[in-house]
């Protein structure tokens, strides 16, 4: 098991955002996490990446307990993230943003290789390479955020709503790229509002409701689950 979240709770001040969630991601999988606004999806991502300390429970990565490991050190262990809201560095060029993704790495040859790969995945970024991140369109920023996360050559890639703000065609494209990245060997945990796409692409999925995991199963199972259909797929 690559990632193992065991009974994690998390608070923002007095507000409890996670009520003891457990979730696993196996090596090679694409796992989707779906849920309504405010369900705690982003909070789960923050717990995994270490941006927010958990109140109780354990997080294990690659067999090691990382519950108390600092966020920047989790990157070195192999967790890469494209955060909610993209988090593009507005005053850095596209290239500098991508270089930031490789901040913890020293293997110049490997970095150049990954830069090549990312720019092949997202040709649009190549065209904008010298432009400041802050001047990119929303969709371009999303590509930059995903590409930047890949630059750390992560074992586990966390994507928080990668389709947010994208045109329908681009949504298709970004999910194809997620599949492609996965086939190239990266494990993916993706948070999505776009449940239809996410579930049809994912090997397995979890449904989060007000800080609790209420359902889990294969992507196909959940896609055909009546309750999920009614709540998240807009089908009565």
């Amino acid at each position, binding site marked *: 098991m690559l990632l193992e979240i065991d009974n994690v709770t998390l608070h923002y001040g007095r507000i409890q955002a996670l009520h003891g969630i457990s979730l696993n991601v196996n090596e090679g999988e694409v796992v989707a996490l779906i849920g309504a606004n405010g369900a705690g999806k982003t909070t789960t991502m923050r717990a995994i*990446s*270490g*941006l927010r300390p958990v109140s109780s429970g354990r997080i294990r990565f690659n067999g090691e307990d990382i519950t108390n490991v*600092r*966020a*920047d*050190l989790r*990157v*070195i262990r192999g967790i*890469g*993230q494209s*955060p909610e809201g993209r*988090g*593009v*560095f*507005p*005053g*850095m060029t596209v290239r*500098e943003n991508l*270089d*930031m*993704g490789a*901040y*913890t790495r020293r293997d110049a040859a490997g970095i150049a290789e990954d830069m090549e790969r990312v720019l092949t995945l997202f040709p649009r970024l190549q065209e904008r390479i010298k432009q400041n991140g*802050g001047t990119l369109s929303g969709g371009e920023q999303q590509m930059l955020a995903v590409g*930047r*996360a890949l630059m*750390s050559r992560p074992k586990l890639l966390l994507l928080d709503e990668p389709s947010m703000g994208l045109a329908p065609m681009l949504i298709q494209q970004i999910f194809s790229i997620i599949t492609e990245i996965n086939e190239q060997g990266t494990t993916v945990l993706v948070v999505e509002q776009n449940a239809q796409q996410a579930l049809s692409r994912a090997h397995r999925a979890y449904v989060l409701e007000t800080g609790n995991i209420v359902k889990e199963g294969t992507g196909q199972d959940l896609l055909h689950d009546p309750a999920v259909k009614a709540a998240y797929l807009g089908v009565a």
Partner: protein
Amino acid sequence: MNFDALFDHIGQHTVDGLAKGAIYALVALGYTLVYGVLRLINFAHSEVFMVGTFAVMWTWIGIGAGNTPSIGIAILLLVLGGLVGAAASGGTAVLVELVAYRHLRRKNAPSLVFLITAIGVSLSLTEIFGIFTGNGERKIQGMPTILNQSIAIDFLGVEITNLQLIVLAAAFLMMIGLDQFINKTRYGRGVRAVAQNPDTAALMGVNKDRVIVLIFALGGLMAGVAAVLWNMRYGFTRFDIGFVIGLKAFTAAVLGGIGNLRGALVGGLLLGVIEVYFATLTASKWEDVFAFIVLVVVLMFRPTGLLGESLGRARA
């Protein structure tokens, strides 16, 4: 208002102003670096400069430097002073961060608490030096004159002294070095990342605490170089020397656009020139007041300064 005095020698006054402003610019960098990353006005930075002037003075006196030594020895004393000043000021700045601010950050203290702490640290350092140096007499402390001043360049009647040349060259070299470091190196990129988006920076593997120590050290280093230039130029220091220099440097930082490194340079040089012009017009009396008039006017009409903010661009 004596306009003839100003315009008859406008070139000379400009050069004098630039040399004066270069010292402000170096100190201003410390305010701007810390503000750019932490959104904190580090009022203790004036004392970081003050500690540097003392460290350099003690070093010169300690190794028995005499007045106006030969040029070789003078350069040696300057380089040595620069190293000692940079180490002392840089060390003080890092110590302030480790002892005072880091703890507050861990507790997520509101920014007002940081501000009050900064003022507290500033006053404490001032008083400690007031009590424990110069037999507690709280007077100006003189030191050997390191440089025998002479005219190095005479260009169309504008005389540039060797001292002014050294001050300007040192300030520009430090500025260029810092600019390259921040914009071209991996560590510099880490600094900019934390300034622009601290959470995402952590997701890239940047250790925020280490970046913060780095910017305090860099700001201190610049103040230390400013300290040795000050000592060379004015030949004295005092426990409360940081107050006025600090306020002027802060004014320079705001004038250029706080958070903007090149703005600190522009603001410092401009303030120096404005001061000299104004001192000439009013026969000196109003010189210090004028810096603060500039500060108030800038804050009123263009709070983002001349160049605006760049280090932490668009954090808002």
